[in-house]
């Protein structure tokens, strides 16, 4: 009898550091010894991919990098996979950021996919990094009314004579706006989607996805859900990267947490049953 009480109490009182250690093992071990569990493609990723596939070659795509370093492990792999897809479809990329660190990740993505950024021969013709535009949603409103507002790109070069920007005179010239974000998507729907009819697709952290569902598919054409979305897109564009490698670790960690929650609830219910009996 006493042994069962101890077990139920112990189940609901595991030390924090033991939990941290178990989680670290569940996350670390599959990264060292991959299992290779099969990965299905979710609705949001499929919609995103099909929309990009449907764009005519040479179309302009705006890529808004709202990536901070804190969300980069989830969202940056999405950006790399999508940029590779845009490159393979010959789509023209205008990258910009309304957050301070965003344009730096755009630069990293161009280096990863094109091999170089500002030094590349196609810079200014097939892709450009307009840099940081301060002001949050007010800046989005100004950009939406005048996409040529940025006079110097992220590297300090004049944008006036850049070939890619000659095709931009209004937000409607963008056939798609892809937003990589760890924050709300509503500002983009408010400033670009509703007033100007710009189709929006998003690569976001898992935390944001529940909020996106209210706008999908009417306003947001497709979405990538965190690291899983990045892994799915890497599969679709046949460019395996860090996201696919992390899926086994995610599975192990999810199983651990569900096991711990069940153990905690078992301990709680047994304890409650014992108290009622007493």
């Amino acid at each position, binding site marked *: 009898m006493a042994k069962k009480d101890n077990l139920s109490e112990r189940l609901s009182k595991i*030390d*924090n*550091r033991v939990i*941290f250690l178990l*989680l670290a093992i569940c*996350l*670390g071990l599959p*990264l*060292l010894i991959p299992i290779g569990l099969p990965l299905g493609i979710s609705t949001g990723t499929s919609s995103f991919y099909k929309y990009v596939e449907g764009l005519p070659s040479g179309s302009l795509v705006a890529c808004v990098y709202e990536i901070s370093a*804190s*969300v*980069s*492990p*989830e969202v940056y792999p999405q950006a790399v996979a999508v940029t590779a897809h845009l490159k393979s479809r010959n789509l023209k990329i205008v990258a910009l950021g309304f957050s*301070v*660190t965003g344009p730096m990740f755009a630069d990293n993505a161009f280096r990863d996919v094109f091999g170089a950024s500002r030094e590349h021969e196609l810079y200014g013709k097939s892709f450009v990094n307009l*840099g*940081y*535009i*301060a002001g*949050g*949603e*007010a800046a*989005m*409103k100004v950009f939406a009314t005048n996409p040529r507002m940025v*006079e*110097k790109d992220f590297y300090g070069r004049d944008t006036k004579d850049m070939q890619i920007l000659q095709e931009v005179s209004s937000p409607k010239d963008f056939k798609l706006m892809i937003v990589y974000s760890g924050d709300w998507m*509503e*500002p983009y*729907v*408010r*400033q670009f*989607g*509703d*007033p100007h009819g710009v189709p929006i697709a998003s690569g976001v*952290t*898992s*935390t944001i*996805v*529940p909020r996106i569902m*209210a*706008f999908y598919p*009417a*306003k947001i054409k497709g979405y990538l*859900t*965190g*690291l*899983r979305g990045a892994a799915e897109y890497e599969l679709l564009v046949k460019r395996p990267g*860090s996201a696919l*490698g*992390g899926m086994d*670790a*995610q599975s192990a*960690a*999810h199983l651990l*947490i569900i096991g711990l929650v069940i153990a905690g609830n078992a301990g709680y219910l047994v304890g409650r049953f014992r108290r009622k009996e007493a």
Partner: protein
Amino acid sequence: MISESVSILISAGLTLMAFSILYRENRAFRIAEYMYVGAGTGYGAVLSAKYVYDNVWIPVTKGETVWLLPFLFSLPLYFYFSKRYSWIYRIPMAAIIGVGTGVIVAADFKSRFTEQIRMTILPLFTAKDLYGSFNNIIIVFGVLGALMFFYFSREPKGPIRVLTTYGKYILMASFGAAFGQSFMGRLSLVIGRFQTLFEWPAWILVLTAFGIVAISVMRDLSSKKKPRSSA
């Protein structure tokens, strides 16, 4: 690729210093934390200064002196630091708040209210799509029930009570979904950091860190002191 190896070592070192809080509060974590604040602020300051340079200095040197006005009008913001004249700071701040709110509010009501109502007007019964009809019923009555749940002016009775109870369960399901997604997101960040730690030559630091923690745990256990928990 010496610079890449150095970068990996520094990144891994800073990551391990930050992760050390999971065992207990310590100086290494504080150093990482304070460095994070300083570096982030410095980087933000540089980007903001560049923005001001590109949008004030360059146009002014080209003859568009009108763009000097917002720069001059922002200087009263620094009266924030004055005890006697701090009220002056409110004037430019009022303009910033006015524009910031104005940009959002007009468009917000359309996208967050009228468009949401439009998207919630769904057919409740379509003979050819019973599954879709079932989902539409859940969504329509779920939205109504969840909205009614927040109406506190009168106690709900009868059918309204049934609706608000249903709305409560819909909200619980959506909070559960939000937790599940949120947790997955945080785990992805940990996976990202672990992937960095498992690159060569970060292994050296990882093994060193494990050694330090193991020695620390053994010392704590042998002295029979309970270490301070970090959570």
